[in-house]
């Protein structure tokens, strides 16, 4: 705690709090507007649905938040989810063991993250292009591996993970709270977390002050990959089937959640808890479009606009208030 107070001026901290407050206010206004616009919004079923979607989006985006904090980007999140889900699905089907499936999903995700991390940290390839190449490679491998087939029907013990409830709350929400805690504690209260912030703000100074920059980058990309693996398991358990395209169109929303949550693409500022608010806002927007029966084709357009809006505001405020 004392370390945080030292490294961050009080003024900046209060501005962070203020910005989080604005975002929560936006989410609340969105809720109010949706409640007025649609009778279906404030039903228990829909609220649980929003919570479940938010949890899933947050889990995909939480690892990505750390990557973006280092001024990097992981474009392979969606493709990672696709391959991890398909491999986990075939392991579960072959062995009948949920535990092995979970290990496969998270292991596959983490392994992909390690590859990304190695490309970025040691070969110094710009992260957006390294993970972009990775994204297409993974997409190709997934489609090739699945060959148009669908794997479905998983044991109930595994399905609980995505569609089960505990005390009336969906289980993914508990997973979300767990990783919100872990992520926040790691980023704000550990030396490694602080080094990740420093790395994003000024890589050269961080390197010169003796931080093993390469190993921190590897950690961050591995974590992002592992979280994609975890998210893939929840998706798998929820929809009870795996197809080659299971991870398609998930990268854009994950990036949007991080950016709406106030984490800057330029590195060094933002938070995992902000990403939770970002995930909630994006989920509310997409849920609202569904409730208002707007064709789902408009969703990538809305997500794209939101990304540009969030980054545009961040860029302009940085330029005017350095």
């Amino acid at each position, binding site marked *: 705690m004392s370390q945080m107070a030292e490294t961050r001026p009080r003024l900046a901290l209060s501005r962070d709090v203020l910005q989080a407050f604005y975002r929560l206010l936006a989410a609340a206004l969105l809720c109010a507007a949706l409640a007025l616009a649609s009778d279906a919004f404030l039903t228990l079923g829909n609220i649980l649905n929003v919570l479940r979607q938010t949890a899933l989006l947050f889990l995909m985006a939480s690892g990505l938040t750390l990557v973006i904090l280092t001024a990097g*980007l992981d*474009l392979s999140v969606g493709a990672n989810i696709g391959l991890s889900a398909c491999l986990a699905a075939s392991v579960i089907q072959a062995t009948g063991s949920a535990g092995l499936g979970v290990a496969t999903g998270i292991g596959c995700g983490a392994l992909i993250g390690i590859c990304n991390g190695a*490309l970025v940290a040691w*070969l*110094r*390839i*710009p992260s*957006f*292009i*390294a993970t*972009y*190449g*990775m*994204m*297409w*490679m*993974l*997409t*190709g*491998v*997934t*489609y*090739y591996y699945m*060959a148009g087939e669908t794997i479905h029907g998983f044991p109930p013990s595994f399905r609980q993970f995505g569609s089960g409830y505990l005390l009336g709350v969906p289980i993914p929400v508990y997973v979300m709270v767990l990783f919100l805690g872990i992520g926040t504690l790691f980023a704000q209260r550990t030396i490694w977390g602080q080094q990740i912030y420093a790395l994003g703000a000024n890589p050269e100074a961080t390197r010169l002050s003796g931080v093993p920059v390469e190993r921190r980058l590897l950690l961050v990309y591995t974590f992002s990959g592992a979280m994609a693996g975890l998210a893939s398991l929840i998706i798998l358990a929820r929809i009870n089937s795996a197809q*080659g395209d299971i991870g398609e169109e998930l990268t*854009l929303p994950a*990036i949007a959640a991080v*950016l709406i949550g106030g984490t800057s*693409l*330029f590195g060094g500022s933002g938070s995992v808890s902000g990403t939770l608010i970002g995930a909630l806002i994006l989920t509310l927007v997409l849920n609202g479009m569904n409730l208002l029966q707007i*064709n789902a*084709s*408009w*969703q*990538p*357009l*809305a*997500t*794209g*606009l939101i*990304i*540009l809006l969030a*980054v*545009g505001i961040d*860029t*302009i405020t940085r*330029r005017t208030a350095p």
Partner: protein
Amino acid sequence: MSQIRTAALPALARVPGVAIVLVALLVGFSLAGPRFLTPANIANILMQSTVLILLALPMTLIIMTEGLDLSMGAVLTLASIALAMTVVATGSPALGFLAGLAVGLGFGLANGALVALIGIPPFIATLGTLGIAQGLALAVTDGQSVVGIPPSIERVYSGTLFAVPIPIIIGAAAYALGHLLLYHTRFGAAVFALGGNREALRLAGASDRAMLIVVYAVGGLMAGFGALLMTARMNSAHPTAGIGLEFDAIAAVAVGGTSFERGNGWLFGTLLGVVAVGVLRNGLNLLAVPSSAQVACIGALVILALFIDALRSRP
């Protein structure tokens, strides 16, 4: 003597990469099956590479400015839909062509403005416009193909001029123009400076922002031209037809030896890169390798090219 060697080195260090890849692919596929090395198939590869060259040329310029355009495939798709819908509605191929170009130019200008005026990092700005173009393409067509295109459009792909197929002429003209633009105009010099030394450009009195916008606008415009060829080839427009085309273009540029960080561009390398990607896809097709595995191969090729570039640039 030593001066000559240092001057020749960068060129030599780049040439082998893409040339070796291309020769290896040509030899490999020729040995793998009898259907590869036939005049008809080689002509086929060149024909199929024409859309790609239209995208890869401006992509080279964009990457030279340390930028990226992830929206090209989606913009080409949307332009193709605009073209097809306009032709079907008005019956005028010229109006359709203009509609496609307008969509391309509009998105190119938007990308340029987001990058140059607002200062959004290019990969994220164009990721946003990718989402917008993809969403619009799906929404206006409701996921269906646009059909009923008059044969005059289709002849752009199948027709010949002086016994040379029209797409080949378009591709060659585009390359020649690109070469002139990059190596023989002040704009080209500005493109080199945008990546390597933006400050010098500003000090020399040129508007770096305007130049950057022009670079992205050219990219959008070329996507509009690509839409014409694509629509003519398929004789229809489909909202997912161009998905991932930007990846082939980026692959061609990366394999062709243009660097993502230092403003080093090489247009002829891109041309070879386009042929390499075309040969790879065609050869794998002949070996009945599914397109999914082709995508994985190109992904691996890109990572390999980046890997080699990274090793080379290490001090």
